[in-house]
């Protein structure tokens, strides 16, 4: 186990790299597979010390579901923000900063949260408390802050805690 652990310190990363290689190579020829496996094995070992320590993906299945949800949110928000931009003169969105208390502490999870808020139009990750106990979010259009916070935590933070912690 430890031997395998040392050989493949980050299995998910290795898989990701292997897929990345095949996609880049645009081929599944034997030679490319051999090369892909080699890179997927070698690179994580080489970069082991430069990676985030203790980062672990615990629930891959949930991760996939989470990403699908985010994708949906992205598309929906895109349309909303596009509409709001076009009619900005007549109706201004109720943009404001929202403080969101956090239970998520894992750096990878927090990064993922930042990533999600960034790519979902309508939210901008602005600041994280020093002790990671809360974050500041700029929101494009929010009616009720409390509702929004609850929805946000439920929709994004909880799944991420499940996945990373």
């Amino acid at each position, binding site marked *: 186990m430890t031997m395998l652990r040392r050989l493949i310190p980050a299995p998910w990363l290795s898989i990701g790299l292997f897929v990345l290689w095949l996609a880049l190579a645009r081929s599944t020829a034997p030679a490319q597979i051999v090369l892909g496996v080699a890179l997927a094995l070698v690179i994580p070992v080489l970069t082991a010390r430069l990676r985030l320590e203790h980062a672990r993906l615990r629930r891959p299945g949930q991760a996939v579901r989470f990403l699908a949800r985010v994708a949906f949110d992205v*598309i929906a928000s895109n349309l909303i923000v596009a509409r709001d931009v076009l009619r900005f003169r007549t109706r201004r969105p109720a*943009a404001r900063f929202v403080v969101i208390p956090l239970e998520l502490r894992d750096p990878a999870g927090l990064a993922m949260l930042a990533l999600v808020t960034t790519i979902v139009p*309508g939210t901008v990750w602005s600041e994280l408390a020093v002790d990671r106990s809360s974050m500041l979010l700029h929101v494009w259009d929010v009616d009720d802050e409390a509702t929004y916070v609850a929805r946000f935590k439920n929709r994004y933070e909880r799944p991420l805690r499940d996945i990373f912690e």
Partner: protein
Amino acid sequence: MSTGLAWVDVIVAVLLVLSGLLVLISAIGFLRLPDFFLRMHPPALAYTLGTWCVAGAATLYLSVLEGRAALHPLLLPVLLALTVPVTTVLLARVSLFRRRRTGVEDTPMASAPRPTDVADPESAPRPKDSTAPD
């Protein structure tokens, strides 16, 4: 420039047009919105759906053209999603820092303990004398 399959062409065309419009709207928003934090929202249109549309179009188009699954264009939105937060997170922090430094108190702090950027906003140099770039 054609796959020979009409439905593919139509889908690709629609996706391209959609992408163009989204990017244009995002740029309009970026140019016209009055506040920096407001301006940070519309660009997401460009690097999410604007890109997704093109990536989807390319994937579809190339796959049909080459007769095999050409999934590599999809790497672009993925990589973009990974990298774009770096700049936006930093820029948001920049904007907050500068607002607080110049004493604009309309931005709340994240929580207690307060991550204060400036010891005493009053004693901070005025923007005119500031050596910070603008």
